[in-house]
């Protein structure tokens, strides 16, 4: 009955350029233990988990924060700026949660307003103009859903951020640090390589939101979390993330230094590869990366044309190990 499956799982072939990075988990089979979805939700939301600025200060040097969207205000839920990754200047954009209640109120619990996404867009463009790679750090329960956000065009701001990233003529590496909350995360998560910390989560709606709508009871969040396959290993299986960055044994919140070290190794290795690729190759591979998502059957359709050669195949170094 099913004659053709279009872009089911990208799988290890799509991760080919990551295969020689021994520090990364590129197949969920590599994991000795697989945390339950609900444990991952708790870990991803742990207030002691390293947040964007914790990571920036440990991974990068000479960080200079850049403020404001040039239109309305500076959104504290998104931080961005220029820094150096092992001497290489890069632009960083990340969603910022707080490590205490007071800080969370100031950061709006990491839920950006439209002006936050417009600041992100401004920094993406800045990076493109001066040929700086972009590194984004995703950590949000979601975009702020309140009336001020609606009034100032929350949906438009997110849509434009996604739009800008799809054609941005510079390498983009995405790291999901904690919570990847739906469209509010995706506005920072279109990239050439999408990585996630081992216990990060990424979902189309929060488990509580999903439980309220589909199970008509917010207490079913744990069940919803399982069904949604939002934890790192699931994301890897679905091809939504390309690789997981391993966390220290007790979880990222137990050791910010170790976590940052693992992130840094991954970023340096990925950037070294992406910088060798021609921009046109990067953009077509970025297109194909997202073009491939979807689980479909098309009875009676002709076979899919073969996919274009991915850019990383041009470099012997990046060939998959036998």
């Amino acid at each position, binding site marked *: 009955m099913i004659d053709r499956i279009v872009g089911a799982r990208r799988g290890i072939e799509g991760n080919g350029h990551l295969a020689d990075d021994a520090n990364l988990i590129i197949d969920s089979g590599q994991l000795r233990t697989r945390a339950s979805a609900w444990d991952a939700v708790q870990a991803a939301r742990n207030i002691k988990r390293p947040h964007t600025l914790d990571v920036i200060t440990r991974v990068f040097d000479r960080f200079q924060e850049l403020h404001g969207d040039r239109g309305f205000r500076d959104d504290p839920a998104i931080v961005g700026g220029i820094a150096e990754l092992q001497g290489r200047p890069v632009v960083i954009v990340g969603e910022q949660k707080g490590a205490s209640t007071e800080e969370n109120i100031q950061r709006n619990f990491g839920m950006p307003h439209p002006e936050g996404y417009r600041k992100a867009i401004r920094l993406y463009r800045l990076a493109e103009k001066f040929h700086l790679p972009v590194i984004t750090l995703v950590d949000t329960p979601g975009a702020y859903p309140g009336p001020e956000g*609606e009034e*100032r065009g929350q949906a438009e701001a997110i849509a434009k951020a996604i739009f800008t990233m799809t054609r941005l003529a510079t390498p983009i590496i995405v790291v999901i640090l904690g919570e990847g909350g739906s469209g509010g995360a*995706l506005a920072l998560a279109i990239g050439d390589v999408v990585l996630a910390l081992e216990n990060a989560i990424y979902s189309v709606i929060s488990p509580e939101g999903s439980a309220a709508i589909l199970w008509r009871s917010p207490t079913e969040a744990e069940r919803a979390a399982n069904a949604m396959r939002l934890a790192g290993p699931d*994301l890897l299986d679905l091809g939504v993330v390309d690789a997981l960055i391993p966390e220290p044994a007790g979880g990222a919140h137990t050791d910010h230094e170790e976590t940052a070290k693992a992130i840094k190794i991954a970023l340096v290795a990925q950037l070294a590869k992406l910088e060798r690729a021609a921009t046109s190759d990067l953009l077509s591979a970025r297109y194909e990366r997202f073009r491939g998502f*979807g*689980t479909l059957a098309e009875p009676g359709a002709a076979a899919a044309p073969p996919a274009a050669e991915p850019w990383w195949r041009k470099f012997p170094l990046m060939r998959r190990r036998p």
Partner: protein
Amino acid sequence: MPFGRKPKEFPDHLWTKCPTCGEMLFNKQLVRNLNVCSKCEHHFRLGARPRIEQLVDKGSFVEQDSSLVSGDPLRFVDSKPYPERIAAAQAKSGEKDAAIAGTAAIGGNPVELVVMDFEFMGGSMGSVVGEKITRAAERALAERRALVIVSASGGARMQEGTIALMQMGKIVSALARLDEAGIPYVSVITDPTTGGVLASYASLGDLIVAEPGALIRFSGERVTSGTVGEKLPVGFGRSEFLLEKGFLDQIVSRAQLKERIAFFLGSFRAASQDVRWGL
């Protein structure tokens, strides 16, 4: 006949009460009037098939990708398995999923047209909607035709999880290529359009028009008022509010929609000296 208890002489299968002005509308009359109240212009929702009928030049619509059906990437089960939900929606609607795509002409302008149907699982966007729109945008690019998308959707389809979320990235990637090629994209927003559909393609038209009174919000009513815990003013997040806030080019009544789209596309074509598209 406003506000009273419904008298026996107005059975549901023959009559519909207008929620805005209370007028009892004869169903056959209502359908003839494109589901718009003849007294107060209240716009009832319109299914995808009658919408296509209304918008395109007679006989010009050629449906594309009509056999696409969704898989079940998460093997998702809530109170019932996702494939059963799809099967039920298919049986009820006679459609395969929440969008219908095709090639057509609007006032003589060749277009790729995608129309969403809210009746099919709340117009939710999963793999099929994502693939149909992306293919339509890719055809528009290859054939240098304009793209018109009529949105009506509660957002991304929860049962497909992050794969539904990724459809936003997929569709927008294709729209960005269209933009670079200088090919027009007109986004038509109808009641209701919320969530991930509004936060991606519906908000990215070269021109964005909406029907009167349509609910257009990033967060659904429940999310916005539930999370923030305050009562929202009447008309908040409706078309008129978005026009005032600067997020729509126009509000266009259903009766004017075809002519207006044709005018816009015609203007763009006439002004394209190098005729980069539309021939």
